[in-house]
């Protein structure tokens, strides 16, 4: 973050990019900052990426702080995201961040962690997983379980990495797709159903859930049934943003600004809020 002027983006270089999904709607971007020391972040935080002449938008940081470069995974949906998809390697892009709060990785120490994701909302969950499952921190946490799904295999993010993670003995990786698909040997069915089947223990465990609203809606009762109390279920929220620093006033839910007080909240914190939707 520019310490003198929080609206000024740092200039950074796009060092690599690739299509993440077969429908070519989602691309991952590797971003290199000129001075890595100015950028300390935790899993769950986000950045404002910008292109001069186009605009700015918020994206969760998909890389883990242990990685050398920053990773963002972007769904092509509007003006800026389309412009990002058109870029070539070597382009300079603006970046402001890290912004917002993060997943409670300190509180989770000594406990099990269940990561539940759907569709392209696995970005900051990748960061979280790599952070807690890294060899230097793995011992700080008990069981680590991922339940992640997409409509079809080609829409899962980070497939090569999931293949590698699936081979690890010290984490459980449960992948699912909505309907049977040729060559697919893992779970079939919606994320909430698979979560119920896998039934990770809730004893002292934390759950982190990110995905489309409909997935969240059906996942919460399953987590409740498994015994997770709302104060140990976390999610990351999205609202339209501009400033990302709690000034422009548009991203509130009740008295909380998602960019400033969030984006990470426990369901206990959300329970009492006056939400418009």
């Amino acid at each position: 973050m520019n310490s003198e002027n929080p609206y000024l983006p740092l200039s950074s270089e796009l060092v690599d990019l690739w299509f993440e999904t077969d429908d070519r709607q989602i691309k991952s971007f590797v971003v290199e900052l000129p001075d890595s020391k100015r950028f300390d972040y935790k899993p769950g935080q986000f950045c404002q990426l910008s292109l001069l002449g186009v605009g700015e938008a918020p994206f969760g940081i998909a890389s883990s702080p242990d990685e050398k470069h920053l990773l963002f995974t972007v769904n092509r949906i509007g003006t800026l995201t389309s412009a990002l998809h058109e870029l070539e390697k070597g382009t300079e892009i603006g970046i402001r961040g890290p912004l917002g709060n993060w997943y409670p990785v300190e509180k989770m120490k000594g406990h099990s962690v269940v990561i539940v994701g759907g569709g392209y909302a696995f970005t900051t969950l990748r960061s979280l997983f790599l952070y807690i499952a890294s060899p230097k921190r793995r011992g700080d946490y008990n069981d680590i379980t991922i339940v992640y799904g997409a409509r079809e295999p080609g829409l899962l993010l980070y497939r090569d990495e999931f293949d590698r993670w699936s081979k690890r003995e010290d984490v459980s990786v449960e992948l699912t797709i909505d309907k049977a698909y040729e060559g697919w040997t893992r779970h079939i069915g919606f994320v909430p159903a698979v979560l119920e089947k896998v039934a990770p223990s809730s004893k002292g465990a934390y759950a982190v859930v990110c995905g489309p609203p409909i997935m969240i809606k059906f996942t919460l009762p399953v987590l409740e049934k498994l015994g997770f109390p709302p104060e140990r279920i976390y999610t990351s929220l999205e609202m339209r943003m501009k400033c990302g620093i709690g000034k422009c006033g548009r991203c509130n839910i009740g008295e909380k600004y998602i960019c400033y007080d969030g984006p990470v909240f426990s369901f206990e914190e959300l329970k009492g809020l006056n939400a418009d939707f």
Partner: protein
Amino acid sequence: MKIIKTDELLNLINNLGKEMDIWAPVGDSFERVPSLKTVEIPQGTTHFSAKEIFFPKEQTLLTYKREDGNFELDSVPLPDAKGVIFGLRSCDLVAIAEMDEFFTGRTYTDVYYQKLREGMLLFGVACKQAAPTCFCNWFDPDVPVNPGVADVYLYPLENYLLATSTTERGEKMLSSFPDADEESLEKLERFKLESIASLPEKQETDGLADRIYELFDDKQFWQGTFDRCLGCGICTFVCPTCHCFDIQEEIINRVGRRYRLWDSCQFSLFTLEASGLNPRPTRFERMRQRFMDKLSYSYKEFGKYQCVGCGRCVVMCPANIDIREVIAKSCTVSRGGG
């Protein structure tokens, strides 16, 4: 407390005006004037507040040049202005204090706001007589005679003024004037009592934040208030504490800029996401958001109501929506009822 004659005050300000802008209430807003000709200001407030002096309707955040498809970021044009603002009412001084905290506190300093705010000397003027739409006393009974964050605060007595300051730079400006004598101090006490007496009967604002919060889902409560809203947003533009903005980009003749401009929670695009999802899709949610923010969220988050009782939105709303009615009505319904 100092005594200052009318022409001395005019001289003081017009002398400052040799090196800086003079802003004063003109018509419906604060305008730059070549010199100050009178210390008389109209009763109550101007329709538009002075916030646009620190938080302009439109402001450049950064500029760049476009050459052969590449962009070169120019040095950042931080605004630079020096001025004296004459004629601020106390309700506006309360609002400025809130804006200061909001823009320069809370982790990130908004340097654009800070730069303009620091360059301004504030001259407040106590209210002799409240306007019919004033209700500042609902939040704090002494508001109309409170110096707040004014550098110099003036009490207009008969043919002279009493002046006090709350800042070092204000104190310096007043240092050469004589101290108030007993007689004028007595007059000041009478002035204050009369001023406060000119305000309407106070509505109960203790517990207001919780009361309003609980009425969130009570559609019946908002009926008659929300169904009249046109969604024009004027309430937010005239409000001295509303601070919402949009950030946009434009390139003209190869010179580009990123700039911010006032935005309003009363507009449907304010919260519309790229996916098409809009958490506040109708005027009802947007009207409710404004009252929630002014009378509840702000208090829960900052311990202060982002309504100062200036009455501008009451005057300006084309649909006659009246925030005073919302407060009054909330006092009469029981918890969750209505």
